[in-house]
């Protein structure tokens, strides 16, 4: 024990320098490493030293001592482990036994070291590194492999004498940094998702479990996959955002086009609601466009509360004929004058001249009639009303002819006296109106009486101020009056008690005329006489403010003031079904507004109402 302690003390003194890591400036050999690869043998290595040349070969010696063998022994094998090494085989190796070694050069201790074998275990690298293919992905881009190796052959792993731990390193061929896997206790490991188009390198090393030092790395294994289908695969599947955007826009555009140009009005309405246009309830604008006035009129007739817009019907035109060719008419002024004047002769002449060949249903020339009507004013029942009038008109024509001749001389005198009053009435058109009758005051209020002589002066267009229930039109005061009497029978009876110049025979009266007429014949008899004659619905009377009731009774309440000038055109205030118009008496203070049910026709009752 004493010798052992002495030797160890010497060894400690000597080896402290070596373990402290200081450089040996003297260039003496030093121990570099002692290593046991399998816990059965070990070997120690030392450097030659700088003074190698100076020393004679073989002068360096190494001695070792074990605790149980308390003497220094020289290295048993200087050769097996290479140069400057000492190899201790299994017989010299005792695990868990402290060893001390020393290096001498020319008798002098240059280095020493103490250790235990189990502390210097450093296995050899594994052998037999290889790989096998496990599977290939469906896309043929990736593959899984299994890397296998064998433990170092000198390690007795089967017996369990040494337990080894392995560490695998791998990297791609062109990479510089190795990646390492976790330590393994088994000799194989799978590697997943390796790219088929790349090459990999693998190496493995091992160490005894519970120790720190790894052995050297095995040889590097190159993993190369055989070329599969040379299909051009994409690196990564990038979501084709660009394509999706393009297709989305195209789809939207196509959908929009289809919607816009499709016939599916419902969908179109949903997506692109139409801008609301002004519209009258219940009336289809298409009817107006296509000229189906009858339908429109029927529709209008249904609605009691709505203003009727009476559309011009060409059938009206038929009833009105303006005889332009007649020289008498032209000389006497506008058609309006003609219509409004009491010159029934002229009118009759006109009518007669025209009516002979055309076979028109009405007494009046359609041209003349047309002049009295405004396009916007139309009785919806004109067509129906016109029918009975036609029959009567034809009779009237014949009557008128006769009466014209009879009355012509009387008519000539009448207009002259009425001219001044007419002028007063007339505000818009300073045309000489020949108004039949001596009633001046009334004339001022009412529209001008229709005078055949002045019919030539009647304008082409006259506004319809009102329409009787029968469908007759009441012209606005701006135009000549047109009065007609469809019945010839009663006319002579009526006319005779009155003034001769009154065109009672005529089927059409304007309100002024009627009033005048009534005024002239204040007798009840005259009125009564007048009444039957004016019971006809088809008496055209132009009023400016006729607001009579639907019935013909009680026209007495309508007493429009006679002094108030009458405008040519008055707007329709209220439309009473089916054929009533109430005009806005903008310039005239109306006592009350009642509907003139008769389209411009004023019956005798109405006349009674009108006349004061």
């Amino acid at each position, binding site marked *: 024990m004493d010798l052992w302690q002495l030797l160890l003390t010497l060894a400690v003194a000597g080896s402290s320098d070596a373990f402290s890591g200081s450089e040996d400036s003297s260039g003496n050999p030093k121990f570099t490493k002692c290593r046991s690869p399998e816990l059965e043998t070990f070997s120690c290595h030392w450097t030659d030293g700088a003074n190698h040349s100076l020393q004679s070969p073989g002068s360096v010696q190494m001695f070792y001592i074990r605790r149980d063998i308390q003497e220094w022994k020289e290295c048993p094998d200087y050769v097996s482990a290479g140069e400057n090494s000492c190899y201790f085989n299994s017989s010299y190796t005792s695990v868990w036994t402290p060893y001390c070694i020393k290096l001498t050069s020319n008798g002098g201790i240059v280095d020493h070291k*103490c250790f235990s074998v189990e502390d210097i275990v450093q296995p050899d690298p594994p052998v037999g590194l290889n790989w096998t293919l496990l599977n290939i992905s469906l896309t043929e881009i990736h593959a899984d492999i299994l890397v296998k190796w064998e433990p170092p052959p000198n390690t007795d792993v089967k017996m369990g004498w040494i337990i080894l731990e392995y560490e695998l390193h791998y990297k791609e061929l062109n990479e510089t940094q190795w990646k390492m896997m976790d330590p393994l206790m088994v000799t194989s490991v799978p590697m997943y998702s390796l790219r088929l188009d790349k090459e990999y390198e693998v190496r493995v090393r091992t160490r005894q479990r*519970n120790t720190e030092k790894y052995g050297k790395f095995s040889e590097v294994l190159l993993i190369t996959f055989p070329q599969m289908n040379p299909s051009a695969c994409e690196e990564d599947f990038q979501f084709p955002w660009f394509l999706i955007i393009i297709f989305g826009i195209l789809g939207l555009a196509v959908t929009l086009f289809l919607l816009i140009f499709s016939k599916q009005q419902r969908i179109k309405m949903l997506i692109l609601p139409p801008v609301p246009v002004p519209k009258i309830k219940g009336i289809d604008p298409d009817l107006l466009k296509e000229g189906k006035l009858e339908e429109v009129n029927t529709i209008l007739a249904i609605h009691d509360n709505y203003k009727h817009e009476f559309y011009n019907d060409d059938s009206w035109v038929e009833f009105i004929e303006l005889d332009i060719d007649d020289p008498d008419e032209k000389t006497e002024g506008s058609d309006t004058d003609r219509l409004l004047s009491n010159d029934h002769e002229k009118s009759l002449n006109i009518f007669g001249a025209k009516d002979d060949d055309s076979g028109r249903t009405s007494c009046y020339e359609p041209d003349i009639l047309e002049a009295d009507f405004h396009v916007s004013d139309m009785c919806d029942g004109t067509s129906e009303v016109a029918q009975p009038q036609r029959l009567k008109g034809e009779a009237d024509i014949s009557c008128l002819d006769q009466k014209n001749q009879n009355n012509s001389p009387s008519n000539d005198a009448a207009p002259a006296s009425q001219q001044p009053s007419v002028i007063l009435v007339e505000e818009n058109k300073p045309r000489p109106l020949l108004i039949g009758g001596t009633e001046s005051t009334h004339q001022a209020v009412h529209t001008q009486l229709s005078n055949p002589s002045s019919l030539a002066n009647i304008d082409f267009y006259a506004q319809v101020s009102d329409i009787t229930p029968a469908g007759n039109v009441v012209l606005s005061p701006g135009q000549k009056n047109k009065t007609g009497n469809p019945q010839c029978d009663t006319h002579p009876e009526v006319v005779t008690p009155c003034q001769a110049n009154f065109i009672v025979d005529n089927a059409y009266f304007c309100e002024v005329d009627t009033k005048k007429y009534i005024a002239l014949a204040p007798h009840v008899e005259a009125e009564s006489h007048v009444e039957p004659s004016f019971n006809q619905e088809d008496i055209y009377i132009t009023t400016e403010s006729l607001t009579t009731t639907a019935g013909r009774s009680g026209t007495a309440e309508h007493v429009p003031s006679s002094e108030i000038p009458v405008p040519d055109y008055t707007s329709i205030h209220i439309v009473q079904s089916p054929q009533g118009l109430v005009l806005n008496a903008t310039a005239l203070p109306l006592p009350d507004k009642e509907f003139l049910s008769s389209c411009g026709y004023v019956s005798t009752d109405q006349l009674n109402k009108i006349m004061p």
Partner: protein
Amino acid sequence: MSGSRLLLLLVVSNLLLCQGVVSTPVCPNGPGNCQVSLRDLFDRAVMVSHYIHDLSSEMFNEFDKRYAQGKGFITMALNSCHTSSLPTPEDKEQAQQTHHEVLMSLILGLLRSWNDPLYHLVTEVRGMKGAPDAILSRAIEIEEENKRLLEGMEMIFGQVIPGAKETEPYPVWSGLPSLQTKDEDARYSAFYNLLHCLRRDSSKIDTYLKLLNCRIIYNNNC
């Protein structure tokens, strides 16, 4: 006729089924009352011994780093372990020639002999001035694991060598006075030595156990 055939079929099927069964019953009532398979026992023992070796290595390195810099070499060289008297195999050949019974009794002796030192180690490390928690916690852990391993080894011994009553004497540790000496250097040296011996003996135990495992369970084909 059909009944006898059915019976025969039943018996044969039972036999076949029974042969394939490897019973590994769980042991809820403690180690004394149930049968844990030898393989499981060895697996657990190997795990525990490996763990103890790890802990002791770490503890030694910690202590060496803190208290025995520059002095460890001497301490290691001069002192010996109290378990050196046990005739443990020193190399592979010797180990291969040692019977597993002997081997197991050696393991048991080692484990038993370390019970006392480990207990005192914990006590003394606790009392040590400024002892790092790493050393103390590991000391406590090692003591506990050592007890577990001892129990497991006794169970393995009972299964491998049934009926044998293993009561061989084990080395007694007598280094307590040196751990409790007032001389700090001496004390540190004693600690160092103890920890070094612990590391070595845990390595022995671990190696012997793995050897037995491969020999008995895997039939030398680990």
